[in-house]
């Protein structure tokens, strides 16, 4: 379906014919004014052709040479130009931003998945502990965590046999 502008241009150029021409002309509100405008357009066209068409290039050979060189350059190495378009700065920026977004999404997802463990997973846990009963029959053990920021887990033994100072040797 042609627009009015397309039909108008075609009518000015005399390219409408038959039923299309009749329909278009009947749709014009003022055919006489349109005909006058058509004549003016033709006159203007003829005038422009006459005035501008004959202007010659002053450096014709140089211009041609430039064009030929450009065509040869572009035809000679098509793969290189295609490849180089891939690593443009906007694409790199987009890739970086997408990677960052993916990283953040994964981090958040994994963090949420393990949140049920709470703080205990950050602390050392003593699962069981035994002291040689033969050498230390009265030994006892206790386990606790310090309240300081370091969260040191302590296995506190009492009643172990005292040893002479020599045992502190390196």
């Amino acid at each position, binding site marked *: 379906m042609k627009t009015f502008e397309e039909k108008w241009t075609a009518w000015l150029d005399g390219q409408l014919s038959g039923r299309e021409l009749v329909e278009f002309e009947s749709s014009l509100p003022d055919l006489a004014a349109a005909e006058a405008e058509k004549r003016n357009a033709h006159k203007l066209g003829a005038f422009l052709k006459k005035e501008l068409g004959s202007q010659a290039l002053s450096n014709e050979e140089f211009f041609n040479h430039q064009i030929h060189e450009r065509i040869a350059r572009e035809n000679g190495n098509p793969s290189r130009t295609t490849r180089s378009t891939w690593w443009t700065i906007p694409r790199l920026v987009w890739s970086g931003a997408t990677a960052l977004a993916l990283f953040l999404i994964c981090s958040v997802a994994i963090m949420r998945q393990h949140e049920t463990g709470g703080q205990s997973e950050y602390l050392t846990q003593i699962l069981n502990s035994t002291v040689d009963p033969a050498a230390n029959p009265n030994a006892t053990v206790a386990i606790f965590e310090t309240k300081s920021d370091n969260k040191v887990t302590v296995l506190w033994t009492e009643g172990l046999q*005292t040893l002479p100072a020599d*045992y502190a040797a390196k």
Partner: protein
Amino acid sequence: MLRPLLIAVVVMLAVSVVSADAAHAVWSGLVIAENVPQPAAIPPELTKFEQTLKDLFGYNQFEVIGQSNKTLKTGEEDWLATSKYFSLHCDARGENEGGYNLNLTLYKEKDALLQTDANLSRSSPLVIKGPQVGSGQLLLVLVVKEDDHGQTHRRHRVEPANPISAGFNRLRKAVHRLFR
């Protein structure tokens, strides 16, 4: 539209794999704590919780008489920290979300004095009060440290990990497991 996404995924995986190179090391130390008139400087591995140790045990000097710095790759290694008379045998029995599952045995020469199973967290050190030795006290200390390319450094992670870095560590580990 799909290619930028693909590139992004590759970049993310590459970054994760590179950061996964930072393995963990467990520092295990046999420490003699005692009160002396002029205490020596505390070993660097203990500086982060120096005050906690002083408050807990009431000593002013902590001297390392034996130590081991073991980089854990599979989480199933075993190692010894030894002094002249004591040795601490650490047997790692796997890694889990909370840290490393360790079986620890303290030997006095050939006698096993103490045995314990612990889940050693990456962010919380373990201190075991051993026997009294002379006027001092034997302590066993285990700390998990970050270890880049098998070389240890003095960075400790004794504070509770913040959620972002904990999340990052989990992601890093998950990706690392994929490439094992």
